[in-house]
């Protein structure tokens, strides 16, 4: 059929012939149903074993391009460790069964030791990633065994294990150490007092968002792009062409675990607090203490904005006088009221800044416009700005960024 005839037929069927029109509409809607259904299915990558496994060889000096063809190797378990469970195939399924065996001597011990180190800062075995001959011996072998047995017997219930440790008398001790404790147990190996550990970067950010009341508690969903200084991405991107575009509104205040992560240019405020780059598995994060961290919590818009919103909350709900406001602020950030010293120190700061901001409304206005959240205009400008400096100082206190 010549082309123009076929076009004409097509036109007639789809627009002039009533039954043709109806069929065409039904066809389109059926096709749409199929594509909609396809789109609703989330694609997940999986791995499978090859029907015929590829031959694997010892690599000369470990170099991938230098296989020793005379030394073919096959999967197996080092002889110092227990063998594969009976009947388990020598492939990934067998390995998974072997690792998750209730009686495996390492899995439960390594896992509970890791949970312990997350809570106490150091594992019962201090080399959390090395239980081999070069690793250190446990400080409390009986306790490690008991926890490991308990964990495996509970059906590997992680939440229960955390509760088990957190509700212990050992964890619930005071973190302030006496001179005698410091003398006799300087590294706290014998757990004479509770640990004092700086919070991880994500926790510090989430905590500031939470106490100020701006935290967006939404669970799940795609990653978000909170505030980031300009030019972090394009400075390293191919031909400088990729730009970070921060989100607007509620997405700026999601928990840090939802932050979009670009490995070649990771979030600088989290990197300052030892967040891993996600390029390599990190078992134990360092807890460094640097001037860069001070600059982040003092100057990053995320923290300054949280401080002024926190100040607003304190002014709205913390009572009429400064002392009760400060108590309210300390209850939210440290779970205890402010003592005399803190009241005196922050009253001084508040008074001095109130004087400055009263004399310079422009400065106060600038500070209270930093970040996206609109301030409550009914609050006195200078008071709000002065309280923001107090709030920012509180966010930077050791006792606020430290778990004690």
């Amino acid at each position, binding site marked *: 059929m010549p082309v123009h005839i076929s076009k004409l037929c097509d036109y007639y069927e789809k627009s002039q012939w009533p039954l043709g029109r109806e069929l065409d509409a039904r066809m389109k809607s059926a096709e749409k149903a199929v594509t909609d259904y396809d789109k609703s299915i989330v694609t997940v990558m999986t791995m499978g074993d090859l029907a015929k496994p590829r031959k694997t060889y010892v690599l000369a000096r470990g170099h991938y391009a230098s296989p020793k063809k005379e030394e073919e190797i096959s999967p197996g378990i080092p002889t110092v460790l227990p063998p594969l469970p009976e009947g388990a195939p020598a492939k990934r399924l067998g390995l998974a069964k072997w690792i998750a065996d209730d009686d495996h001597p390492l899995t439960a011990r390594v896992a509970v030791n890791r949970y312990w180190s997350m809570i106490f800062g150091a594992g019962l075995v201090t080399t959390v990633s090395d239980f081999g001959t070069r690793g250190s011996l446990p400080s409390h072998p009986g306790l490690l065994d008991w926890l490991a047995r308990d964990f495996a017997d509970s059906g590997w219930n992680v939440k229960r294990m955390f509760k088990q440790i957190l509700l212990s008398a050992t964890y619930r001790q005071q973190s302030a150490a006496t*001179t005698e404790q*410091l003398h006799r147990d300087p590294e706290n190996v014998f757990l004479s007092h509770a640990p004092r550990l700086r919070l991880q970067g994500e926790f510090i950010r989430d905590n500031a968002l939470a106490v100020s009341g701006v935290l967006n508690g939404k669970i799940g969903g795609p990653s978000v792009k909170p505030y980031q200084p300009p030019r972090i991405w394009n*400075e390293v991107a*191919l031909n400088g062409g990729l730009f970070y575009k921060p989100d607007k509104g509620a997405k700026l205040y999601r928990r840090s675990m939802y932050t979009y992560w670009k490995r070649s240019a990771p979030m600088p405020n989290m990197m300052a607090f030892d967040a891993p780059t996600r390029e390599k598995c990190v078992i134990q994060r360092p807890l460094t203490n640097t001037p860069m961290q001070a600059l982040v919590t*003092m*100057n990053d818009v995320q923290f300054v904005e949280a401080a002024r919103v926190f100040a607003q909350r304190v002014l709205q709900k913390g009572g009429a006088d400064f002392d009760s406001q400060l108590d309210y602020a300390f209850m939210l950030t440290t779970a205890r009221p402010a003592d005399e010293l803190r009241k005196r*120190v922050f009253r001084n700061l508040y008074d001095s800044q109130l004087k400055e901001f009263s004399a310079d409304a422009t400065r106060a206005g600038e500070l209270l416009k930093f970040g996206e959240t609109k301030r409550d205009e009914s609050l006195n400008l200078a008071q709000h700005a002065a309280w923001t400096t107090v709030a920012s100082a509180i966010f930077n*206190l050791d006792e606020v960024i430290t778990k004690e």
Partner: protein
Amino acid sequence: MIPLFNSDHLLDRRKFLNLGARGMGALGLASLAQPGLLNAAGRHGGALGDPHFTPKAKRVIYLFFSGGPSHIDMYDYKPGIRKVHGIELPESIRKGQRITGMTSGQKSFPCVAPMFEFKQHGQSGAYYSEILPHIASLADEMSLIRSVNTEAINHDPAITYINTGTQQLGHPSMGAWLNYGLGSPSDNLPGYIVMISKGRGGSQALYSRLWGSGFLPSKHQGVKFRSSGEPVLFLNNPPGINRNSRRAILDSIKAVNEAKFAETRDAEIQTRIAQYEMAFRMQASVPELTDLKSEPEHVFDLYGKDSKKPGKYAYNCILARRMLESGVPFVQLFHRGWDQHGNCPRDVRYQCEDVDQPTAALVKDLKQRGMLEDTLVVCGGEFGRTIYSQGALTKDNHGRDHHGRCFSMWMAGGGIRKGYVHGETDDFCYNIVRDPVHINDLNATVLQCLGLDHERFTYRYQGLDQRLTSVQGARVVNELLA
């Protein structure tokens, strides 16, 4: 539970001796470092305490040309090179070697001699390209290495390899290693600073891992200084907070932290108090450092036409000199745009125009100030480029693909032999025929100049005593040392 910790795990004599042989690196030496006390390298806060032996260089300026500068068009000249122009790359040279996917499908591999003139310079008589007149004038000051090599042939693995000692991700960069091992002499500036500039050519991506701390604590990572806005991220006070307000806020933080220390006796609090003070000092010292107003006009003349333009390589070179002067022990400049797959003659010339005068000026400037003798200058990229043309070879144009089997770098200053050319490539600048220098050998040599034995400078991670120079072995190139 099945017993795990039996007597086999107790440290027996043999294991104990092994531990000793591994050197101190494995034992978590941070506890030996004494903040405040200077080590033999004039620094403090390093995990090693003192370097292994007396260092020849106290500081390093690393000029990294990212993208793969063409050694053929810049440094690796031989009078016979013109003869290969236009001929097909012989199989006797290529030997079936792997090349990148960008040219592996080419039907023809026509060799291209450099489209630039070369002349001999200085007492050493080394050849330099006409597009590097200023660097050429340093011929008698430096060691030119024409036999650097790497296994990597693509940017990401190659640039990670030379900067961290391995193609795998997650290892510390050279600057982070040094920051960790030796510490810094500076109290109010970071021990490792990075700056980035971009040329006119296509720029390959960089990655923060190139100055990252890998498995070392993150405080050892390079701090990136920036040409506009805040010189260091988060350095500026928020709008409305001036320096007086900042001081008042800091004083209140300090008073409460001191009370907390008295209550808990937690030494971390004292460190935190000191770090907040350091942050305050940085807010003053960094802008002072990055403000070039106090530089006299003749300095700008020395560094050339771009020297007053923030963000340019020349500007960064002046900043680098100021940082070295202020005690920063490791400064690394990344200049992008060296990936000449096409338009090689034009774009290599452009790139050289950007870097030639400022690079030479930096060396001369350091020399004038008496700093060159203990400052190590390292200059080069992640690999070189092919002798054959990528794409068509015309009368005045061609491209070059990546080439890792040989490329050129140079070093000068602290501990480095003067007026010396090391290594030799074949007639096609394709394979090394004499004195190869693997990038890990080069890094071992850098550590040597800083007083470090690269084999003893280790950190235990994932069951290995990791080194900057990898665990596969590297050698210090003694011929390069003064």
